[in-house]
């Protein structure tokens, strides 16, 4: 391979986060659903897929079921928050993230709590096992391309235009005879589905998961990506993922002691976010204002 083992690792993470960020943008940027529960879908997908695969389920089936299971939670989240708007919706969906986190931590019989789940098998598809990281990179690139392609088709289709119309003015859309409640469910379920898929890809790559991988800091990271890239821009989310996941890794070459590395990275994220909000309030490629 032409790229180093370390770069391979970073690229794998970038492709996983692209699916995660684009799927959040589908709900947040395109449909206008202020959803702070996205990280929970990611966690649900990761745990579902890991547990099913450990029980012996073939990888592709486990991955799809992980997506579907996350999507069921997407449905439930919309049902539970149906009447909420704005800040209240943000609080309720953030609460959902906390609830799922504490379930992962406390349902010990299933999730092993804080001890996490080790030994998650590498994906094996039609008898071919993805063993090396180079192979995983190709695999994850493939899934990422398919996922982004599907989401791209959705947002560019007439259905996608309805999502944007719902974000801009739901009342006007209903007066045109469109069921905006149905739209909200569909958008959130698609968004959750792909978050679940990316959770699965993450779990089977790292082969060990514990609840801390699906906590609020993770949520802030993907929100930062979506805002920096721009609401309602798939291209923006892709570019921003690459920048935000890759750039801090350059820090590693600076030979900082590991105790300051984490904080410096967080500070860098914050700096990027603040710089973007000051210089380009709509993000790099965004067309829609933040509310």
């Amino acid at each position, binding site marked *: 391979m032409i790229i180093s083992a370390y770069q391979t690792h970073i690229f794998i993470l970038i492709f996983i986060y692209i699916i995660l960020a684009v799927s959040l943008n589908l709900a947040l940027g395109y449909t206008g659903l202020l959803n702070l529960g996205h990280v929970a879908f990611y966690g649900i997908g990761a745990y579902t897929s890991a547990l099913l695969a450990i029980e012996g389920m073939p990888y592709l089936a486990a991955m799809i079921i992980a997506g579907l299971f996350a999507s069921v939670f997407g449905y439930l989240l919309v049902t539970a928050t149906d009447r909420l708007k704005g800040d209240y919706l943000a609080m309720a969906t953030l609460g959902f993230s906390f609830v799922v986190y504490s379930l992962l931590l406390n349902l010990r019989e299933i999730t092993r709590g804080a001890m996490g789940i080790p030994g998650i098998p590498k994906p094996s598809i039609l008898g071919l096992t993805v063993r090396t990281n180079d192979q995983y990179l190709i695999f994850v690139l493939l899934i990422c391309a398919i996922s982004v392609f*599907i989401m791209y*088709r*959705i947002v*560019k*289709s*007439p*259905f*996608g*235009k*309805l999502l*944007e*119309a719902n*974000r*801009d*003015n739901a*009342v*006007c*859309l*209903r*007066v*045109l*005879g*469109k*069921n*905006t409640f*149905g*739209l909200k469910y*569909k958008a959130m379920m*698609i968004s959750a589905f792909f978050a679940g898929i990316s959770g699965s890809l993450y779990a089977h790559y790292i082969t060990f998961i514990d609840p801390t991988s699906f906590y609020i800091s993770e949520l802030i990271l993907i929100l930062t990506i979506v805002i920096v890239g721009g609401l*309602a821009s798939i291209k923006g989310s892709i570019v921003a993922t690459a920048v935000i996941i890759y750039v801090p890794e350059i820090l590693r070459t600076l030979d900082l002691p590991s105790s300051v590395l984490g904080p410096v990275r967080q500070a860098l994220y914050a700096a990027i976010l603040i710089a973007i909000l000051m210089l380009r309030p709509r993000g790099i490629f965004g*067309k*829609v204002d933040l509310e």
Partner: protein
Amino acid sequence: MILSCKDIYKSFGGIKAIDGCSFTVAEKKITGIIGPNGSGKTTMFNVISKLIKPDSGTIEFKGQDVTGLKDYELAKMGVSRTFQDVKLFQNLTIREHLQIAMSDTDEKLLSNIFRGKEGDAQKIKEVMELVGLDKPLDTYGNDLSYGQRKLLDLAIAIAKPHTLLMLDEPVAGVNPRLRDSIKDILRELNSRGESILLIEHDMNFVMDLVDHIFVMDAGKVIAEGAPEEIQNNPCVLEAYLGGSEEGTKCL
């Protein structure tokens, strides 16, 4: 009778916005609603189109009780409306507005993903010409002037499949030349068999356009009739001059 509202009541806190309002709209006619500011005209529109739930009263559309329907269900049955404070999609283009209005398949997710259908370009062009909106179809809702947004709002209401067209002050803020052309549009639509219900303050606009007028004051209908009758009705003049108690007596 295409639409009939019976004994509608609606209060906002202490304000009785609609206070026992009843009226009917005849099929294939143009019906006007006039009345002073704050007399409840827009609120009645919102009640009819289900954006607001009335405290009591019933609404029938095409002989069917639609009181319990949701806003989008009634819209699907064929009610189109415009807004006094124009509501559009800021980040969608004119073309996309009209495509949404015309499409009846865009809510189907799966059939959409792999063969998203383009809207009918010919039909879009026709509606644009009909309302006289002379702007590139790629212009965003955000980038239109007030008058242009008013026209686009009218265009999408017309483009949406409907049998009843409800217009809330269609010519407010629209220049005089365009007023006359909108009048012509409405006559044209009416001659094609559409029923139209419109709210309007501009008497010149209303009087020679509509077949029947309801006059609202303080949340109820205080007079109705052909335009000539209304023009000479003392109660109506009273209501417009502010003597609303006198007006109520005329009932």
